[in-house]
């Protein structure tokens, strides 16, 4: 039996002048899942999240959050959501606790509940040690944790995270992934945006791939990779600057060039790889590396759009 949908978006359209930021976006997020919006910068992820949080209006379509209509009950919906944007929205001159108190006041949180939530945040996010320090005295990682804690101080059932780990080093990123998984463990529904395919792969139960304001694919990560990423691909790293020369003998294959690598999408990569290698050698092209790689969400994205996730869109 499928779980209850807590966020339902149907045919959402948003224009900025002549630019279409969202083009009939539809999806639903189930209760208690971590749902990822994966796409490059400019795909419309932030616009979509800001619409759900009531920060922007939409032009067409419908969205409901826990059955409240976004067009009519925006203020009720805001109380159900904890929104944590990319930037740290804390007041530098206030302590972490004072920032929490301010955030709590925005949701009319009583003092008893506030104390409970501060205790919870101290344990859950490990911020007890710097609770009374001013934000300006904190490290970047501490600020981001405090930022997340402030955004969920009112104990919302839904947490919306916009690029939660952008700019983090790998270790801090993994710590944050653990925190996000724990949010799910506490029964929260998480909607997050990312352009990091590993992040989406690692922590999201389902992923909607967005491109140019559209949802181009939506499913569980492994299903997407299985169905759209191909079985595997051959990745070739050519020695020297012979990459253009190498394209000629490989032109019959479905290929893309990523940075200084050629990626071939073929049905049976293990069988095709010797043939490919021979073709390159016969043309006098030396390779640094030739390997069979399992498909990733990046492959899915490339297959769907012909571009890489890291390419910015206008």
């Amino acid at each position, binding site marked *: 039996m499928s779980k209850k949908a807590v966020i339902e978006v149907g045919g959402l359209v948003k224009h900025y002048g002549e630019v279409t930021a969202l083009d009939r976006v539809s999806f639903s997020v189930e209760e208690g899942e971590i749902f990822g919006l994966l796409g490059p910068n400019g795909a419309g992820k932030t616009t979509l999240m800001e619409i759900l949080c009531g*920060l922007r209006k939409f032009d067409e379509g419908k969205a409901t959050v826990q059955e409240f209509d976004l067009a009519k009950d925006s203020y009720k919906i805001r109380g159900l959501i904890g929104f944590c944007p990319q930037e740290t*929205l804390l*007041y530098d*001159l206030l302590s972490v606790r004072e920032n929490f108190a*301010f955030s709590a*006041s*925005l*949701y*009319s*949180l009583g003092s008893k509940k506030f104390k409970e939530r501060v205790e919870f945040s101290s344990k859950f996010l490990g911020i007890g040690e710097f609770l009374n320090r001013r934000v300006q005295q904190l490290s970047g990682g501490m600020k981001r944790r405090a930022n997340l804690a402030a955004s969920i101080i009112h104990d919302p059932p839904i947490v919306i995270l916009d690029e939660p780990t952008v700019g983090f080093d790998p270790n801090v990123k993994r710590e944050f992934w653990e925190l996000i998984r724990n949010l799910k463990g506490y029964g929260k529904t998480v909607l997050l945006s990312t352009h990091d395919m590993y992040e989406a792969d690692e922590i999201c139960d389902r992923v909607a791939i967005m491109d140019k304001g559209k949802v181009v694919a939506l499913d569980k990560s492994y299903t997407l990779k299985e169905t759209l990423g191909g079985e595997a691909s051959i990745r070739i790293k050519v020695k020297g600057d012979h990459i253009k020369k190498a394209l000629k003998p490989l032109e019959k294959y479905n290929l893309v060039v990523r940075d200084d690598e050629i990626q071939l999408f073929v049905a049976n990569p293990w069988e095709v790889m010797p043939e490919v290698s021979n073709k390159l050698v016969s043309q006098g092209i030396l390779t640094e590396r030739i390997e069979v790689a399992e498909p990733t969400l990046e492959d899915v994205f490339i297959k769907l759009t012909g571009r890489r996730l890291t390419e910015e869109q206008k």
Partner: protein
Amino acid sequence: MNPIIGIAVKDIKTFFREKGTIFWTIAFPVMILLLFTAIFGREIPFNANIGILNEDGQTPITQSIISGLNATGFLTLNIFQDRIEALKELNATNVRAVLTIPQNFTQNLLFGGHANLSLVVDGSNPDVARLVSDGVRTFFSEYYKQLNPNYAEPIIVNEETSVVGQKIGYKENIVPGMLTYPLLFSSMVVSTGAIVFEREKGTLKKIRASPIHPISMLFGKTLAALLQTAISIIVMSVLAAVLLGPKLNWNVPLLIPIFFLGSMNGIALGLIISCIGRAPQEASNAATTIAIVLQFFTGMYFPIEYLPTYLQQIGRFIPMTYAAQALRDIMIRNATLSDLLLPMATLAVAAVILYAVGVLLYRRWVEK
């Protein structure tokens, strides 16, 4: 906690930790107050040497004139026997004026003819020349009146009709004017800054993503700006009272509504500026510039009558002009509530209109 209180508490805490804001809203006005008083607030003793050339001889009238002039306290008399010698001293600026009592002066005065006096003033210092001239003319005007109450000539002196019957020093005049300063600067700059800051920092997004209505946020900001302006007013008032000791009527029940209404006007103006400004820095600069320009039209530092007529008209459209005048009326002229109904009504109407415009602009700006 109520969101409006929450926003106000947050703003007040931030205010006390932001050194720059404290400087501009409290320390700077206090500095201006002290500076103005240090420059102009002393009771400057004025004394000028004048030469007397008595050609009428020793008559009771000439004797009483000379002793009367001597008793004014601001003139030191040098008696000359020779006109050339007197003018020589005048040219050397050893005396600032030479008063000649001509022959037959007493006879002319007593028997109804014109009694002319000759006053030659050193024009090299216009201020001193004006003071000496005014002083001598005032003395004779009074003197003539004593001789003959119906005598209307020659000079009418405005200073005779002082409203409180006592001399008003500069500090008594400047303190109410300076208390207008927080209404204009602190309230306007603080309210502009409060909204611009949230916009610049991006924290407006956090507030807008919460269930509080934009107007609640505005009320919270207004409450904080009112408190900050009140702090500025209290600090300035206490310092002015303690350090300068002006002889003023501190009628708190009447002062509070004027301060409140004046602050609301400043806050509303700040709100409008913050919503019109395209960029945060532009809005902040605009608020400061507008406050600097407006202060000269409001009569804060000098009577509005000093301005050319066309500039006085501009002053009459600025709510803070009425606040400055009302504060002087209360503190100097012991005005009562009935005297203040008109300025209070003017300030209230202006505050309602400006705040309503501010709210409309703010809503439009927030929903963009």
